[in-house]
């Protein structure tokens, strides 16, 4: 197999995109509507899917118009070797192919505890230790080998992170071992730094930013439980200052970045236009334009 550095050259630049999940248009944003009304703001659609629900009409319509997509899985525990089975890989590959997804991605850790069954769903970060990172890397290598697609692990959100590693060190280990690309979620990183009482940019200096293929930006909300402060990954229209700070620090150094997703699909489109505009300014769909500026 060729190295990540070679493989990544074949990936197209997708620009700024919108996230979505099954039937999201019924309660939030319809990506095709957004594209029709604001063609300069959204260039691809990241569809969050699980095998139970599969694809919806919204993503099918978008893909039928030959517009770019990525497939964000919501139902696999990358940290758990025994969760990765042939059936999941084959079905996921088929769904991704049906919408012409450019790559696979998703939060690395756990989407469910134990079995993939009703009632077991709960997004949890990996235990931040070397042993877990090696297992996650093994899962990614298997998925990439059996699907022939990039599989970009994403740093997940949480209120409680356990393990002795910084989350960026964990994902650096994963990427090195699996020789894979990465999805850096700026909002989730801001959440992590807050839980460890660290400044937003901590750990980025030693992080392999050349492996970052995709980034996520989303709004967060400060919350507390009985005085214990944390950031809720609320996907509101306005990202926190720390999230923008991380994005703007990483952007110039992420030499293989291909896509930024604004995770705001649950809001009214009008509330998110400013965020989309700012992201398009920072990461234009055509790289030449960016250089010209």
């Amino acid at each position, binding site marked *: 197999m060729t190295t990540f550095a070679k493989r990544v050259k074949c990936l197209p630049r997708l620009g700024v995109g919108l996230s979505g999940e099954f039937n999201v248009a019924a309660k939030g944003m319809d990506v095709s509507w957004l594209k029709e009304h604001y063609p300069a703001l959204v260039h691809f659609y990241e569809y969050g899917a699980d095998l139970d629900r599969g694809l919806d009409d919204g993503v099918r319509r978008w893909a039928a118009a030959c517009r770019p997509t990525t497939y964000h899985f919501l139902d696999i525990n990358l*940290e*758990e070797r025994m969760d990765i089975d042939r059936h999941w890989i084959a079905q996921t590959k088929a769904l991704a192919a049906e919408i012409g997804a450019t790559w696979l991605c998703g939060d690395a850790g*756990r989407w469910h*505890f*134990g*079995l993939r*069954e*009703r*009632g*077991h769903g*709960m997004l*949890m970060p*990996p*235990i931040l*230790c070397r*042993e*877990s990172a090696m*297992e996650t890397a093994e899962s990614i290598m298997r998925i990439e080998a059996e699907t022939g697609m990039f599989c970009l692990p994403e740093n997940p959100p949480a*209120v*409680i992170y*356990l*393990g*002795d590693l910084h989350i960026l060190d964990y994902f650096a280990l994963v990427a090195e071992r699996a020789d894979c690309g990465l999805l850096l979620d700026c909002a989730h990183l801001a959440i992590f730094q807050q839980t460890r009482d660290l400044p937003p940019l901590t750990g980025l200096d030693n992080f392999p930013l050349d492996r970052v293929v995709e980034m996520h930006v989303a709004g967060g909300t400060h*919350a507390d*439980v*009985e*005085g*214990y402060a*944390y950031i809720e990954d609320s996907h509101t229209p306005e990202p926190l200052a720390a999230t923008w700070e991380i994005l703007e620090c990483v952007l110039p150094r992420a030499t293989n970045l291909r896509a930024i997703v604004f995770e705001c699909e649950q809001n009214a489109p009008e509330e998110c236009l400013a965020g989309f505009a700012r992201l398009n300014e920072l990461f234009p769909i055509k790289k030449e334009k960016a250089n010209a500026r």
Partner: protein
Amino acid sequence: MSHHTVQNLVVRMLFDEAFVEAVHADPGRALAGLELTEAERDQLLRVDRRAWRHDALRRKRTLRTLVEEFKVSTTIVLAETRSLASLEHFFSSSFFHRAIQERGSLGMAFSDFLLDGGKRGEWKAPQIEDVVRLEAAIAGCRRTLAREGEHEAGDLPATISDRSRVRLAPGYDVGAFQANVIPAIQQVEQYLFEVSLMPAMALCDDAPRLPALPLVDRTKKSFLFFGPGASGISLTNIDKPAYLVLLQAKRPIEIRNLLSRAGVAGVNARRAQEILSEWLENGALVLVE
């Protein structure tokens, strides 16, 4: 693989505040027998206890999913106890903790919890045991079907040796229940439909209440066959001989042993052969490689 152990503990602590307290009060005892390093144990203990409580709706969301599969059983329990805590107690029970720690099914653990509550007299409705067993059978069928996929009835070999092994196909099951189990379920479903028309009516003093359920009749049995239907798992009444033959095939069994056991249970040998042929042909029984 101790990070897996830690993950299981995280789930248990997120769901069960009493367990968090137990871990802090006596970690040696609460975490006994688990493969944990000293450092992992310390990390768990260093988490601010309030952080485990950050999602106040976690139990209710999960309970809602569990209740969807056990809606009749849980309605009977709630009608009797008038206490949501009676069901939420599941998350502090050994059934929940074992399911998480041993990577078992939460739904099936919940059915064991409901059965156990009946046995221990926490809910006394005499209908509860059979209703839970019936809903658990449906839940079990859904899981085997999802895990193994639907079996498509194909051509059978021209001759089948009596040493061949057979079993119920994925998604199929049989059970024997007290005679009034289906009328009881239908009555609860009718009640649930009525309250679903306006859920807030549950707040009213004159809201509909679950009527008295049909009496348990253990003098007669209802033999039910469960199988994949157009909209989930469907139920069909079968006769006692068919039940006794199919019951032997819940696990893979040689045909000669199946027929022998059915004979011991009182099924005529020729009738048992007919049942075996019929259910092999319709795909509910499959030959095991």
